[in-house]
């Protein structure tokens, strides 16, 4: 999987770096101005988030630079960390031990292997069909029936969200789009950029103008103002970036809207799970953001939809 690095890629990467530089300067200025205790905590968290963004962009950039394999490995590791956080929060029993071992060390690597060899026919059904049937079989063989349906459903859910959905991001590299050969790296970059910038903009709009909570019981930080501000701005940014994609400006706006919409849904659903388990974050691996799962929740929901929309309409 060779990825071309052309002038457009350089523009994309340069744009993101410039954006981060601006964000760092704003964060620094805010830290000078802030006076009260609550404001200081918010600004500290903001600056921690920005620092983490530098690191995440560096890792993602490195993965892109090493071509397709680097991306597959990066998202494979991301899946591993996310699944680890997810299962840690999920009450499983002794009888699930072997099934969990398979989930981590057989299903997960196999999924990413199938992505690497671009076997669409199998990577799109391996977890929803084969893992779905075989893992409960292993749990049942262990003989513990207590809360069996609940346990197996949760393991399957973890695999679907953390492995199957995340793997659709590097799967974008396997699409064969006429007239766009060798340029899929930009498509993946576009997708991750729109999904993440939508999160960031929802956060920014919410923090500055947010008054009305959109889902107070599920996610107290999400506001109506943040939602509309974020979705509209991210859609505009997506439309502006059409030159890096196989889409026209209008198509690109539509795709960006779909990504931001699904991304919002992902954040909401994963929040509901956190509330159900009584935690605030999935982990503490990424400073300021929480766990890996907290950062990629929007990617999880948007990736399969974006992949299939692109595959259906453009290949």
């Amino acid at each position: 999987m060779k990825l071309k690095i052309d002038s457009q890629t350089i523009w994309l990467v340069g744009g993101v770096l410039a954006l981060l530089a601006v964000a760092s300067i704003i964060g620094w200025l805010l830290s000078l101005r802030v006076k009260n205790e609550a404001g200081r905590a918010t600004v500290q968290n903001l600056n921690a988030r920005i620092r983490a963004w530098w690191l995440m962009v560096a890792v993602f950039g490195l993965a892109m630079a090493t071509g397709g394999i680097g991306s597959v490995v990066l998202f494979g590791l991301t899946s591993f960390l996310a699944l680890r956080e997810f299962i840690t929060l999920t009450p499983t029993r002794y009888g699930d031990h072997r099934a969990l071992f398979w989930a981590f060390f057989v299903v997960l690597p196999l999924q990413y292997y199938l992505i690497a060899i671009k076997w669409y026919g199998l990577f799109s059904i391996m977890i929803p069909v084969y893992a779905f049937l075989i893992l409960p079989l292993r749990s049942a063989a262990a003989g513990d029936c207590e809360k069996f349906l609940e346990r197996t459903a949760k393991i399957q859910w973890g695999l679907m969200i953390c492995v199957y959905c995340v793997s659709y991001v590097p799967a974008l590299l396997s699409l064969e789009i006429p007239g766009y050969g060798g340029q899929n790296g930009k498509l993946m970059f576009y997708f991750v950029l729109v999904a993440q910038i939508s999160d960031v903009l929802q956060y920014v709009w919410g923090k500055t103008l947010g008054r009305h909570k959109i889902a107070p019981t599920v996610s107290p930080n999400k506001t109506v103002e943040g939602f509309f501000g974020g979705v509209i701005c991210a859609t505009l940014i997506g439309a502006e970036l059409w030159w890096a994609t196989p889409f026209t400006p209008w198509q690109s706006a539509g795709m960006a809207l779909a990504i931001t919409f699904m991304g919002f849904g992902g954040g909401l659903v994963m929040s509901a799970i956190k509330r159900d388990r009584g935690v605030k974050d999935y982990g503490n691996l990424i400073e300021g953001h929480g766990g890996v799962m907290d950062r990629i929740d929007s990617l999880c929901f948007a990736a399969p939809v974006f992949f299939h929309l692109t595959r259906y309409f453009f290949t």
Partner: protein
Amino acid sequence: MTKTLLVLVAKLISGANVRWVGCVPDVRQRIYFANHTSNLDAVVIWASLPSPVRALARPVAARDYWIKDPLRRHLANHVLNAVLIERKQPTAHDNPLADMLAALGDRHSLIIFPEGGRQTNGEMAPFKGGLFHLAKDRPDVELVPVLIENLNRILPKGEFLPVPLLGSVSFGAPMKLEAGEGKSPFLERAQAAVKALRQT
């Protein structure tokens, strides 16, 4: 070399989130007493200590388990610097308490599991008397409660393949044997101190 590797592997497998809740890492003599749910426990607590503290800490472990094969023997004797005790039938020659006191010496710390064995049902078993006798004989040594969470899901009793979930190790506030405190009130207080570290 083996030490660094073992620390790395233990941290990787256990995803250990180390919380110093009631005290800070210190090279002073301490007895870390913890709940026991997995064979990984001793190694993970040992690995979660900062290296100068770790160099002086000696896990107390069951001899029958750790001498089974050459690898375990090597780890116990040369890497963990473990104190191997007989848990079946203590005799005059083989008195675990005397071994532990000798191992403490004047600069080492101990990692012990006062329940005596791994628990599988999620509840802690009553503490055995060893901790009380150690506290009585060495009043100068701090007793630090330690709670290990989730390691029993990572490597349950009877399994040999670990599942890489996130575990945590919490260190509580040091305690001492009060003047005139009896054996069972002290052991109950010690157990409560471990339980109190639960996060949820």
